[in-house]
């Protein structure tokens, strides 16, 4: 794998290998020396054109635990406001001999554009409203761990996701998480149910191969995982929905809806949460909430991704 730009870059074998290795990597977190030498001598630049403490920190720790030299560049607003193009910013860093860029940008497609310009390998850590493939991987990781605790090993040739229904609820129009999850679950075999007010559905969503509905209550009891997405207050001003109260009433995982979940169903949220809007505190802190498991999986999954990209010279161009 040369770059990880989209969850569609992962075939079943690779996605499974990444999740499997992440399990090994999670053990490293409990070791006295939390370090593996696999990426010794490699330089990874985390360049974030948009703030995200959580994602940046987890990539930074992942790189450091694999012994790579990781450098953080906060480039928020730098290029356009200083008149420098994205290309020039990236080519300048690339010329310093960087092995990989982990890039976060508020514009869709930025990571793909950068991958076309630089010699280094590129990991998409979120591009606008497009994709966030490592988030989808860590979601899958947390879900897989959860499915395993329920017992019942998958049938031969099937993954743990086969036959599982995963509802993704919220602002799907502006969400990079949903696009990556849909693509990854298409590979892993999970069935995704998309739930949103019609104003927050992407154009053409009916062709994504998912069930699409505006009625959360109709599907709540049939899903094995319910993933709640953050809904931003500025969407209200955009006329996507009238009030937070109405949104929460129709699409929030309220305490009442918590009781309607299928037994053993898990609750996910990629964070940061708006408690009281899309998710109630009762749901966020419930025993079957994977919210903290998702965070904990972040480092291990990103270690696995970095190892798969940079562990061998085969992916690199020299």
């Amino acid at each position, binding site marked *: 794998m040369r770059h990880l730009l989209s969850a569609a870059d992962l075939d079943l074998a690779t996605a499974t290998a990444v999740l499997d290795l992440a399990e090994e990597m999670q053990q490293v977190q409990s070791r006295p020396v939390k370090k593996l030498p696999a990426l010794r001598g490699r330089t990874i630049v985390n360049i974030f054109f948009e703030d995200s403490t959580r994602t940046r920190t987890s990539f930074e720790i992942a790189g450091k635990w694999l012994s790579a030299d990781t450098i953080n560049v906060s480039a928020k607003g730098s290029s*356009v406001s200083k008149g420098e193009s994205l290309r*020039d910013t990236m080519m300048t860093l690339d010329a310093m001999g960087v092995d990989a860029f982990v890039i976060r940008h508020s*514009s869709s497609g930025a990571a*793909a554009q950068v991958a076309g310009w630089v010699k280094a390998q590129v990991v998409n850590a979120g*591009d606008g409203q*497009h994709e966030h493939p490592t988030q989808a991987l860590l979601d899958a990781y947390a879900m897989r761990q959860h499915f395993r605790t329920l017992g019942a090993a998958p049938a031969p040739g099937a993954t743990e996701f086969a036959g599982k229904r995963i509802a993704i609820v919220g602002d799907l129009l502006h969400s990079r998480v949903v696009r990556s999850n849909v693509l990854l679950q298409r590979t892993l075999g999970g069935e995704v149910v998309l739930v949103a007010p019609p104003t927050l559905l*992407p*154009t053409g969503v009916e062709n994504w191969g998912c069930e699409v509905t505006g009625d959360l209550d109709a599907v709540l009891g049939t899903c094995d995982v319910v993933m709640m997405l953050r809904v931003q207050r500025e969407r209200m001003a955009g006329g996507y929905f009238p009030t937070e109260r109405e949104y929460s009433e129709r699409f929030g995982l309220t305490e009442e809806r918590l009781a309607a979940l299928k037994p053993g169903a898990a609750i996910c949220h990629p964070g940061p949460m708006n408690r009281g809007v899309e998710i109630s505190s009762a749901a966020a802190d419930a025993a079957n909430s994977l919210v903290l498991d998702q965070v904990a999986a972040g480092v291990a999954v990103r270690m696995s991704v970095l190892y798969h990209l940079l562990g061998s010279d085969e992916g690199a161009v020299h």
Partner: protein
Amino acid sequence: MTTTSGPLLITGATLADGTRTDLYLAEGRLADPASAPAGVERLDAEGLLALPGLVDPHTHLRQPGREDAETVASGTAAAARGGFTCVHAMANTTPVTDTAEAAEYVAALGEREGHCEVRVVGAVTKGLDGEELAELGMMADSAAGVRLFSDDGRCVGDSLLMRRALTYVKAFDGVIAQHSQDVSLAGPGACCHESEWSGRLGLPGWPSQAESIIIARDVQLAELTGSRIHVCHVSTAEGVDVIRWAKARGIRVTAEVTPHHLLLDTPLVAGYDTTFKVNPPLRTSEHLEAVREALADGTIDMVGTDHAPHARQDKDHPFDVALPGMLGLEQALAVVMEVMVGTGRMDWPTLVERMSAAPARLGQVPGQGRPLAAGEPANLVLVDPAARATVDASASRSRSRNNPYDGRDLPDPVVATFWKGRRTYAR
């Protein structure tokens, strides 16, 4: 690049209607070939078509203000390379062409440095701000003789202001050319045809209706005011339907389509290559089909290149931030041949009407878009209908390289261009 030529006898050329003829160019005009003196310079045009010089109703020459992207000299050189003998320079320069002085400045640049005739398009509103009318009458009365007015790049959004503009220009037979974009439906961030592609790519959508709603409003305002309206770069099936309806009603509307909206479709933006970012955006195949049909049947009257050069640094940004626009002058004829003539949708006389006569009438340009007959100005292009080549963006005469046809195999028709009898391009 423009050589001062003496008299020239072009022999054995074929006209658009299939007639074979010799053409004698003397003192900037076409003259009776029989009057050519023995020993005059001759050009063998056996197997070549001779067409009236092409006229572009919609060109961005970027001068004054962005001479790093294009100049009057480089833009008109690209025009000559594409077979054009006249272009209409859009008003969105820096400063904006919204006064008689600014219009005369551009017209004078064209006189001095142009490789084709440069007609000036004036702004409809001051600074293109959509708030107050620019000095339309003074621009019309100026030495530039402006007849076409447009805020292109921006839409005149306010209905009342649009009504006033349409009414006001009647005094001097002016025409408002509208960039049809309802900005509340397709805001400044909108950069991808609203479709499954915009949904998958996470790019803000630009729905077809943001175009057709403005066209519908404007044709009704034209009906109300009894004025003429020209619709720039029609890109959608819905827009075509509205124009067809308006024409059937007798409303005085003309419309143009760009070469790129005839040939290039939405999936090209899937790689986020900003060369393919253009406004209005590249549409899906059903829209391409609709604008092709409309150009063939005359619902769309003409081809306008919307030649929009941009410096590299203005394109090397994320897709939603990069400036929209693509080159068009050099490949316009090639694209129309490929999409319309090569497929049998359009014959050569119709191509001449759409790419020369109709835009010359729109701009009220005397001496352009005229038949190739004795006494007419010697504005013509020699075309090899069989030649093809792979487009090489780096070989462009434009100062910019945002050529969406780079690497494509297309017709390479233009053998030579003559403007007022002078050879402005020769292969």
